């Protein structure tokens, strides 16, 4: 058992990551990133390739988005639970979360290029068509429909006056009981006739349009309150604004504490993080509903948000392990982070491996068992042909193998072994995201299940987003101390015992 360590033995201002030490790596990342981004831009400019590339870009974007989202999640969780162990690695969680504002830049193709979002989210095009078709229809049919309605009113009037005179003549010789019954009948008839002839019932352009849209695509019409361009843009911006505000706020508190060591900042971060968690849950859920579930607007699952969250938290923990080990290999954080921290991170990864499996199994199993046409489409596509191999691979390699590996204490406490598992987990997350996004491309683009050469685009997009984000991430590490050097819980964290 090692002796009790004191924060006084640590450098007062923490450790700063010297980016000059890695300037070669940075240069390489930057040049690779820029070159591949240019290549991606060229592909985007080509009309023929644009739709194919859109899927590649979404795949790359969503992979890194979930990693950054996980960084924010761990920061929030750390603060909200009053965690002691995590202080030593919290800065890295924050750094990962800080990539969220940058991801907005990588999300710009979806906002700026109409063809790109049109290729991904088909509801946009279909909705536009549905509306314009309905408008044309309404414009050309207003007269005939109005005439038909007037004819109907005329008929109803004739019928109504007949009924009324019949009832009135009956009233004359009716008993009081019958009278009441007849009066009721008369009132009902009057109301029905008034409703038919009233101005509200007259066909208008709007009512014909709505009716026509409902006839042509009832699903899309019903979803119009959520799936419409105005609200979609609003949400798109709102997600990034909210996520950016959350992470910048917490980061700000954390960094300012480095300077003044004020304990109140820890308390404030804790309180705010508790309040932020529901916001985080809502944003995460609807972001992945918008970007992934809506790749096929007819499909739905209440578990979707939870499923993506599980993978996001898991893989970002893997990234944290890798970054941590990288920094320690460069000589940083040696006195702050011990194998006890690795042990906890390994345990959390283990827990989330199980959680991911639980969630994805539940989702699959319930859809499979109930076998309702509306829901099975998602899995039908992924259980067909080569995608089935990927599905089975996910079961074995995303769950069983890491589950068994992480059961062993040695794997969790040996940085080298835990890094291997982390790399494995990230590879699995890549496959998971690929498996969510890319199968939609085949049927969507209508060129058969396999789009020739598309995998090259996927790799290119992944490299572009990945290299540039890695560059930004490494540079951001250099800005502040690598651990919160004056956090009141730092001493507890560096003396962590499992």
């Amino acid at each position, binding site marked *: 058992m090692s002796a009790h360590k004191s924060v006084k033995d640590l450098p007062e201002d923490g450790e700063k990551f010297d980016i000059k030490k890695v300037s070669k790596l940075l240069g390489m990342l930057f040049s690779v990133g820029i070159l591949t981004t240019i290549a991606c831009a060229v592909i985007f400019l080509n009309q023929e390739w644009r739709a194919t590339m859109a899927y590649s870009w979404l795949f790359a974007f969503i992979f890194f988005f979930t990693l950054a989202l996980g960084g924010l999640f761990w920061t929030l969780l750390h603060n909200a639970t009053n965690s002691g162990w995590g202080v030593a690695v919290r800065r890295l969680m924050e750094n990962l979360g800080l990539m969220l504002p940058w991801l907005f830049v990588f999300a710009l193709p979806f906002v700026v290029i109409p063809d790109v979002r049109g290729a991904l989210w088909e509801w946009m095009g279909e909705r536009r068509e549905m509306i314009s078709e309905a408008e044309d229809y309404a414009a050309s049919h207003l007269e005939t429909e109005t005439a038909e309605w007037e004819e109907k009113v005329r008929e109803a009037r004739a019928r109504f006056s007949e009924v009324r005179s019949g009832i009135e003549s009956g009233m004359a010789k009716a008993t009081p009981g019958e009278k009441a019954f007849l009066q009721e009948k008369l009132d009902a008839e009057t109301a029905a006739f008034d409703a038919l002839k009233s101005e509200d019932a007259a066909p208008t352009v709007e009512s014909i349009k709505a009716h026509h849209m409902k006839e042509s695509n009832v699903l899309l019409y019903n979803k119009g309150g959520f799936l419409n361009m105005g609200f979609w843009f609003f949400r798109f911006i709102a997600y990034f604004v909210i996520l950016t505000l959350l992470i910048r706020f917490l980061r700000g508190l954390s960094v300012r504490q480095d300077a003044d060591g004020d304990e109140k900042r820890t308390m404030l971060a804790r309180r705010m993080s508790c309040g932020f968690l529901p916001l985080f849950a809502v944003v995460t859920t609807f972001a992945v509903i918008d970007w992934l579930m809506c790749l096929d607007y007819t499909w*739905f699952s209440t*578990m979707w948000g939870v499923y993506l969250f599980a993978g996001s938290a898991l893989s970002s923990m893997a990234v944290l392990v890798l970054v941590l080990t990288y920094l320690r290999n460069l000589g940083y954080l040696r006195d702050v982070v011990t194998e006890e921290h690795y042990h906890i991170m390994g345990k959390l990864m283990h827990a989330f491996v199980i959680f991911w499996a639980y969630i994805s199994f539940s989702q699959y199993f319930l859809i499979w068992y*109930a076998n309702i046409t509306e829901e099975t489409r998602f899995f039908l596509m992924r259980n067909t042909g080569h995608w089935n191999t990927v599905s089975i691979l996910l079961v074995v390699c995303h769950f069983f193998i890491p589950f068994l590996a992480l059961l062993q204490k040695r794997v969790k406490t040996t940085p080298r072994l835990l890094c291997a598992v982390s790399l494995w987990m990230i590879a699995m997350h890549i496959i998971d995201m690929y498996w969510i996004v890319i199968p939609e491309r085949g049927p969507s683009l209508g060129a058969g299940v396999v789009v020739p050469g598309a995998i090259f685009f996927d790799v290119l997009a992944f490299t572009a987003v990945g290299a540039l984000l890695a560059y930004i991430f490494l540079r951001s590490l250099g800005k502040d101390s690598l651990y919160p050097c004056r956090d009141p819980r730092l001493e507890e964290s560096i003396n962590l015992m499992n």
Partner: protein
Amino acid sequence: MPNGTTTADEAMKGPQGVAREPLVLNNRSMNWITERICGVVENRQPLLWWVLFLPSLALAGLLAFCLVYLVSTGVGVWGNNQPVAWGWAITNFVFWIGIGHAGTLISAILFLMRQRWRTSINRAAEAMTLFAVMCAGIFPVFHVGRFWMAWFLAPIPNANAIWQNFKSPLLWDVFAVSTYFIVSVIFWYLGLVPDLATIRDRCKPGIKKLLYGMFALGWRGGNRHWRHYEMGYLLLAALSTPLVLSVHSVVSFDFATSVVPGWHTTIFPPYFVAGAIFGGFAMVLTLMIPARAIYGLQDLITHKHVDNMAKIILLTGSIVGYAYIMELFIAWYGGNKFESDAFHMRILSGPYTTYYYCMFFCNVISPQIFWFRWARHNLWVVMAVCMCVNAGMWFERFVIIVTTLARDFVPGAWGFYKATWVEKSTFLGTFGFFLMCFLLFLRFLPVIAVGEVKGVLPESNPHHGDDEH
């Protein structure tokens, strides 16, 4: 700070800055802890114990009467009908089985997460779990109609050579619940062994000493005993962790694997598990807040414990709220006519809309008061919210089961369900049985794990006092 004396009053005021709160207040010694906890078993019970016990016994008798009446008269004395074949019986089953989740969560999951505050409440919570599962078991067994044939549920050869339907989630329930019960009993009993030995050692020779001695399995408290015990405890904790999730997931499959609108939705398993933990913690607080006052255990079950449990209730209540809202959103978004109608019936037009609002208020709105520290520290507020949650979780199961069955696809098959006095009395009777078992547990077994709670004292830390050298 850990060495300073903290009184309950100071603890009320809250943590001073970021310092960790002590888990045992007033710097109590190990001897005090033993005396106080064993005293509950060894001393005469307070009058209040009898005041609670006798009515509970009477209610348990009512339960027995109702069941005998049911069996001797026939299932017609219940209000179940077509289409609402499940009614109160299954509502109560899911209600009780949900309550039976907090115990193992506290014992297993919080243990694995190194949440040391669990030590003061785990024993009572586990006991409560067992009694709740017993109450739960009564309902499906009698709901099968001819309950003496209930053993047909087990896959053992029977006279008619009938095999169970392994594709049915109802059968999985049998396995899930019985496994959960058995493992929970073993886990609970294993934890009791050292404390039973403590009581044995304090008893005068006689029948009492003999009985406690028998159940203490020859525990001598040696180093080897403790080492084996701790390893066994850890392994059982790891093994029972999946059970916390599996039982209510399987219960949720009873509904979600069907194609019934309002039942079939993918979020059901985690939503049910969160709801079960939610209801379970509310019941733990309902029992422990009075118990700590009656037996003077405030220094062991402190405001921090209540505070933590209130936070768990807030968290799980909000998860349940997330699931409710997600269900509504997808029912609308999915565009399935039957699904959206099912929710329309639940909320706006059906015969049971009040139940939905009660459920939503009790489960989602009422716990939100726990965002405020003063609310978590006012025991009356905590008790009030826990009562809301206890009721709310029952409403939830009623809403899921009855409102759905009463209004399914074909209007011609719609129906209405109203519980009879027999069902109501049976349910009331289970509360009597539950409370009776819990009071007997308080009377005969140590309510707090003596050995474990000593482990969280500052002086149990091998580094305790290092700074003074």
